[in-house]
């Protein structure tokens, strides 16, 4: 097929535009990385762009000697591993029950879940609940309230429903109990959906911020995101020219950037898998709903 000059021009324009957009998505990150390895004087002078100036790992050295950074990392690891385990267990069990014809309360429970999607309780009743359950200032407050996402529940349910019915039948003929059936037939077949859900939940748990602001006031229990917010964002005012000397004393730019990098590394490591599974998961979800 012949391509007209106008179309060729558009193609090149499009390639360049998307290159520009892609660079905009990634470049800020390189800038942060460069700053985190640069000398603070060079950062203040504005010499650092995409490559470290007067290379130093001092910022990392400083944050790794800060016990509060360590404790916040430990909390985030606990929330991410423990929380994701709770998420998967709670979502998979309910989704499995809801996927089976034999489960009689299917419609009632589905309706119950759907209503929570449409109408959500305001912040304060949620806060009072956590308070009355004595979960304030515990890591449970960051894991239990979001144990099941209704959207993920529906995606997982439709995956279970898509499994071939013959497998269930053959399991029954072999005399499998329901539990055996779930454990040795359904779950091994569900590795892709479990991996996708695990990643979705895992990223959400690592990024937990709002709930920690609401429910955690003790500094030794905050996750890394809140620690980061305290260091980076809280002194936006301090950053103003009014007391910029103060701001520099509080936390030099290089240190803030180093914390950003540390908080991002797990996401970056997971990103290749995220991209692979997420995109599939999103497509399945969007087609099903």
């Amino acid at each position: 097929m012949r391509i007209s000059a106008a179309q060729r021009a558009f193609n090149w324009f499009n390639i360049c535009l998307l290159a520009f957009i892609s660079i905009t998505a990634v470049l800020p990150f390189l800038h942060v990385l460069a700053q985190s390895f640069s000398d603070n004087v060079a950062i203040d002078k504005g010499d650092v762009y995409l490559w470290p100036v007067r290379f130093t790992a001092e910022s990392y050295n400083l944050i790794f000697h800060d016990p509060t950074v360590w404790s916040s990392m430990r909390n985030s690891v606990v929330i991410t591993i423990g929380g994701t385990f709770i998420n998967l267990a709670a979502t998979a069990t309910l989704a499995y029950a809801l996927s089976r014809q034999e489960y009689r309360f299917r419609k009632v429970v589905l309706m119950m879940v759907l209503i929570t999607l449409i109408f959500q309780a305001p912040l304060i009743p949620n806060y009072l609940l956590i308070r009355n359950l004595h979960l304030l200032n515990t890591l449970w407050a960051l894991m239990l309230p979001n144990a099941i996402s209704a959207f993920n529940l529906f995606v997982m349910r439709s995956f279970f429903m898509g499994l071939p019915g013959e497998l269930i039948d053959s399991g029954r003929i072999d005399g499998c109990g329901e539990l055996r059936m779930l454990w040795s037939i359904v779950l091994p077949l569900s590795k892709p959906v479990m991996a996708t859900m695990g990643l979705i939940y895992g990223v959400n748990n690592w990024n937990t911020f709002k709930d920690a602001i609401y429910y955690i006031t003790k500094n030794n229990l905050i996750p890394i995101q809140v620690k980061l917010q305290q260091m980076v964002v809280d002194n936006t005012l301090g950053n103003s020219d009014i007391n910029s000397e103060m701001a520099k004393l509080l936390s030099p730019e290089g240190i803030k950037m180093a914390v950003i990098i540390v908080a991002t590394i797990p996401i970056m490591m997971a990103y290749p898998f995220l991209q692979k599974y997420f995109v599939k998961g999103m497509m399945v979800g969007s087609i099903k709903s």
Partner: protein
Amino acid sequence: MASSTAPAQAFRPHADKPRKLAPIRKHGVLYLLSIPGIVYFLIFKYVPLFGSVIAFQNYSIFSGIWHSPWVGLDQFRRMFDYEDFTRILSNTILIGLYDLVFAFPVPIVLALLINELRLLPYKRIVQTAVYLPHFLSWVIVGGIIINFLSPTTGVVNHVLEQVFGIDAVYFLGDNSYIRTILIGSGIWKDSGWGTIIYLAAIVGINPDLYEAAQMDGAGRLRQVWSVTLPAILPTIAILFLLHIGRFLDFGFERVFIFLNPLNSDNGDIIDTFVYRTGLIDQQYSYTTAIGLFKSVVGLLLVVISNALTRKTTGESLY
């Protein structure tokens, strides 16, 4: 187990009641498995929902929900009397509106552009790059943007000063920039990710349609306009509806991170106000009333826009 109990039941003499329960007992494990999930929804979703009645009380933490005095609609009346509330409501509506007008169309355009790429490896690279910011938390995104815009060390101000000779601007300390920053940061974070659903919808288009359009002499632009766009219109409609439903839910985290006393006149929204006044200043009943108001308006918005969309495009959520 299943095969051994079935014949046994048939011979049972007074089988009337057991027969009703038999299927439940037979698949008892299914019911057991569903219990944790159901309990989760009851405790963490329904208890707060019923707990919202404190909006009609003068709740005090000492008397609890059972003994606090009922005050009818007083809290709601107080809401509209308070002039700060009108400012916060109008901020919420304006920011929501800007988000709808400026951020919502970006993924559509981006998806159309990505779809025009013919070089597959390049397409994959672009997608890998633009999906990335979605996975960063708002704190990280906020930290990066605050660093960029800093009046002393930020790269934006360095460029402004050195290239254009403009004095440093304290972007975050100014009411006139905060909304742009809020919307812009959202576009940077989530537009790429938003293309996925549209790209999935575009993949599903029947290639015959493009062939037919080519036969009729339609160029690439014309094909986008007359084939691609109409084909993804249902997807756009559904996502538009979902967006409308979350209209007042701009998101606590994004605003909370950028908010400071110098920009809160234009940046403070319902969520951040409820956090400050409710959680910090402990005006529980009053802020629950505000939250309830927000939820009800959100519900109404979904119902109304659903009806409108069904009438105009034939698509609807339910």
